[in-house]
């Protein structure tokens, strides 16, 4: 398969894999080699770093609001409309505007990316808590639990699948958009994709492969965390 692809006029899988492990000559750097495993590791760590910081900001902003509103069953339409509207934020314009208006660098990129993470977390957390069976909540209240205990011991555990769905959606959106962070002066794996003149066609393809693998790895990790957090009673049992 890769042998066939390498004969095509565009980038090749073989070339991209070579680029990932061994630095290659570039047309514009005057003899300095680009790419290679050290650079790949560095940029992967950068992309993970900005993703984690941004996710933390989004969680810190969205979770308290959503838990409170969901627990009180308030502003349902608003919470859901906010999530739907959030999907319409054009990523490229957001990153470019934040860079031009506020500035470049890690923290500014993280803040811009957090804007994409807040709507899914807010909406899913709200819906998850809001939809918890009222009878379970009443039973907890009857047992003498405080409102905070009800939230922590009853509502959040029962809402974990929906709640984690929001966090997974937010993480995918953030790590995907972190790919264009080099436009805002923060180097991630997207650098290979955006600076095609430096890295060449094989570099672009290598960047795409690495970004796709990173997103899939994060999604797998979060699915694993979700399994750990889900109460045994809620797990689908083998029949």
């Amino acid at each position: 398969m890769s042998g066939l692809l390498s004969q095509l006029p565009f980038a090749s899988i073989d070339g991209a894999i070579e680029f990932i492990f061994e630095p290659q000559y570039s047309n514009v750097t005057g003899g300095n080699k680009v790419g290679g495993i050290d650079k790949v590791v560095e940029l992967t760590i950068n992309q993970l770093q900005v993703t984690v910081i941004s996710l933390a900001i989004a969680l810190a902003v969205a979770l308290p609001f959503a838990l409170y509103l969901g627990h009180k069953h308030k502003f349902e339409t608003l919470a859901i409309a906010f999530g739907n509207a959030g999907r319409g934020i054009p990523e490229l314009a957001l990153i470019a505007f934040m860079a031009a208006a506020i500035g470049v660098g890690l923290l500014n990129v993280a803040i811009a990316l957090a804007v994409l993470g807040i709507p899914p977390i807010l909406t899913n957390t709200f819906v998850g808590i809001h939809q918890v069976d009222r009878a379970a909540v009443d039973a907890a209240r009857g047992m003498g639990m405080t409102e905070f205990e009800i939230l922590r011991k009853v509502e959040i555990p029962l809402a974990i699948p929906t709640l984690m769905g929001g966090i997974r959606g937010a993480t995918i959106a953030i790590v995907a958009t972190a790919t264009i962070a080099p436009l805002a002066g923060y180097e991630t794996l997207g650098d290979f994709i955006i600076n095609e003149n430096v890295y060449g066609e094989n570099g672009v393809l290598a960047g795409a492969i690495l970004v796709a693998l990173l997103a899939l790895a994060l999604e797998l990790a979060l699915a694993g965390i979700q399994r750990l957090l889900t109460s045994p009673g809620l797990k689908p049992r083998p029949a």
Partner: protein
Amino acid sequence: MTSPTVFAAVGEVGKDFFKERTTDTLPCQSTDKLFCWDWARENFDRYETPLRQHVELVLISVAIGFAIAFALALLSHRHRWLRPPFLLGTGVLYTIPSIAFFFLLLPLTGRGRDTAIIALSAYTLQIIYRNTIIGLDNVSKSAVEAARGIGMTDRQILWKVEIPLARPEIFAGLQIATVSTVAIATLATFARGGGLGEPIFGGELGIDFKTNIIIAGGLAVLLAAAFGLLLLWLQRLVTPWRRVETE
């Protein structure tokens, strides 16, 4: 790019925003104003082609995505065992960032609008597929039994009972997929697929010219809102029983 210090830059933007109302200097690109009205008035026609390309990207991608996802949903409605592999497959396509997807296609389709459309359609599959099967699952058993009782065939039950009753979820999926695609299609410019991302990245204006970013980004937001509201209206139109229920 502008000043690296966050707070200083914010202060400058605020000051210039108010200055903009009193002074009216062309060209404005070299200054650090938030929005140049005079430039916008003079140059608005630059955005007509990107806007048209953007609408085309979205309509074609969502149409292809819908056709495939709907067919997969009907297939796995009849054959239940197909659901886990379909969910996994569409889930993987959904997780791969669009911008990576554009370039994973590089050895196969190169760059251009077709590449962008393939990646954008692949992204919509999971949302539409999942909503369609949820909609079909939510159809009440008694409605299906009643249809069978009056002598409908399986095919008639599917097209005349199940699919019409699943419309709310199907349209909700279509709405989410369309709004998301409008946003993500701004990235199509990286694959040289045109659209509203092009004036921001790849055009001659420069990525730090704020007026340009606001116009292109603003048009994308308005387009997403317009598609969202249009689909909401269509959903109400094709689910008349819901209006009776909520009244």
